[in-house]
């Protein structure tokens, strides 16, 4: 279980997050949504131990602020937004970086299997920097999956923290990646994802946290949170849920065959 209590973050003297309290359960996908600048990524960074904060954050009972980096690395993996790779590594070499040392000898086919999961089965020997933005994002996801390959480990559930995991993907790969997260949660792991796409959030999230101006505006299932009033206030524009447009083609991922 991920427990956040009374969490406050100040960056460069400015209060970015105000007293956030929430819990995320294993077996579930918890989405963090909200308008630009509402503090979504900062909240994720506090949860992963990247941003200093006041209050408390505990992952499987482990104090995130106090835990050793290697301890955290064995129970959670993080997919960051933009990553600039420094040297001409191949795709497989990058993916292998996710392997924790104890697993290296055990299963050498894991990198290939992780790549196959994200639809990059034949890309292993390509230069990473030659991949498109979306392919790079999926290859990084393969690396992150490798780090927490078993959704449940000896010390309890493992966690995936994803910062906008579908931001540069086409709709087919968006569904593929969200499906991977879904299966990870179904197998007993926990998923926390910063999301921009409300349709995908509604489709995949078990619960969602809506941030607005650094405060938790709403928390609950998509059914509870995604109402016209709540979303309109948070996003600062009129939003209508479950309303079909009058004209023109439209498309939602929910309508796609599984």
């Amino acid at each position, binding site marked *: 279980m991920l427990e956040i209590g009374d969490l406050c973050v100040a960056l460069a003297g400015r209060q970015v997050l105000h007293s956030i309290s929430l819990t995320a359960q294993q077996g579930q996908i918890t989405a963090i949504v909200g308008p630009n600048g509402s503090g979504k990524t900062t909240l994720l960074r506090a949860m*992963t131990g990247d941003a200093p904060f006041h209050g408390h954050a505990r992952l499987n009972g482990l104090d995130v602020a106090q835990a050793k980096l290697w301890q*955290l690395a*064995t129970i959670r993996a993080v997919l960051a937004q933009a*990553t600039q790779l*420094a040297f*001409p590594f*191949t795709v497989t070499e990058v993916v292998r970086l996710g392997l924790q040392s104890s697993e290296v000898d055990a299963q050498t086919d894991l990198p290939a299997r992780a790549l196959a999961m994200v639809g990059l089965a034949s890309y*292993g*020997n390509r230069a990473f920097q030659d991949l498109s933005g979306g392919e790079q994002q999926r290859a990084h996801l393969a690396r992150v999956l490798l*780090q927490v390959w078993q959704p449940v480990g000896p010390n309890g559930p493992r966690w995936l923290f994803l910062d906008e995991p579908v931001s540069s993907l086409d709709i087919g790969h968006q569904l593929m990646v969200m499906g991977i997260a879904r299966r990870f949660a179904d197998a007993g792991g926990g998923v926390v994802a910063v999301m921009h796409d409300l349709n995908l959030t509604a489709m995949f999230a078990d619960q969602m946290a809506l941030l607005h101006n650094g405060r938790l505006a709403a928390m609950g299932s998509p059914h509870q949170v995604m109402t016209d009033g709540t979303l309109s206030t948070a996003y600062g524009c009129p939003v209508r849920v479950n309303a079909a447009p009058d004209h023109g083609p439209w498309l939602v991922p929910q309508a796609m065959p599984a």
Partner: protein
Amino acid sequence: MVMLAETTDIQDRSIRAARVTQGLALALAVAGLASIGSGATGVSLFDMLDGLSAREALILWDIRLPRLAMGALVGAALAVSGALMQGLFRNPLADPGIVGVGAGAGLGAVLAIVLGGLLPATLGAWIGPQLVPFAAFLGGWAATIALYRLASRGGSVSVATMLLAGIALGALAGAVTGVLVYMADDRQLRDLTFWGMGSLAGASWAKIAASLPLIVPVLALSPLLARGLNALALGEAQARHIGIDTERLKRITILGVAASAGASVAIAGGIGFIGIVVPHLLRLATGPDHRFLLPNAALLGASLLVLADIFARTLLAPAELPIGIVTALVGAPVFLWILLQRRGIGGL
């Protein structure tokens, strides 16, 4: 998009790296034998095989072997330091100069050469001829620690700040060096020039003994940093997510470079290009994985400097060429060639 031909298998790359390691070990052995067997006196390996005359013993034990050992040590230290710095700064053009080792050591050497005569006579007699290497090492070390302190805030080190502070510190050291050069007399100026061009002519077992404890541990333990440096290629935050203590990694790497590069500059003066060209060539050959890059850089750096030294001391015999000139003459064109190659394939 056309599928690229899969010319190399990933397993291939590590197998190839292992082969390269064997090849380089062989190359170092050959270069070592060539170094022992060549020199201005023309005494060859065959001459030495049938027992050593007193003169041959002197040439072998007091001239060629110390030069071989010092060349191998310094070459390995410079190449590994370069690879470590490039990994740390995530930049293939970084070298130990960036953390102030070069500027600091240079300032130390200039101070010693120009102001060495002002030391109290007792201290001067005690430290004597080792003043310049000693001061160069202290200067390199002090500059590195100062930079590290400048770039540290709240227990974390900003690599970007370190880079900028390094430039500022280099300029400051350059200015002070300028003042000292102004004060220097004719002979001191020539000493400064020769120091800046590097040389192994001052090789001695005493210098090797003094630098060994600073260089060998760094060479031997650097592969332990490989996983961290590989992860760092993803960025600092990503490396931490994988479980790498990046602050510790930075601290150890910088101290290791200050020790090994500082010791090499101290005993051999300014020798350029080894630190940049060697890791670069190896990345082209076997990829950027530091697990292979670091040991191979030690072997290739050692081989190249031993080879360069053979040229340095036989080309103009009985005089000798400063070795820094040899490495620059060969290294600079190779470096340009690498840049052109990279441009040709769209940048690696």
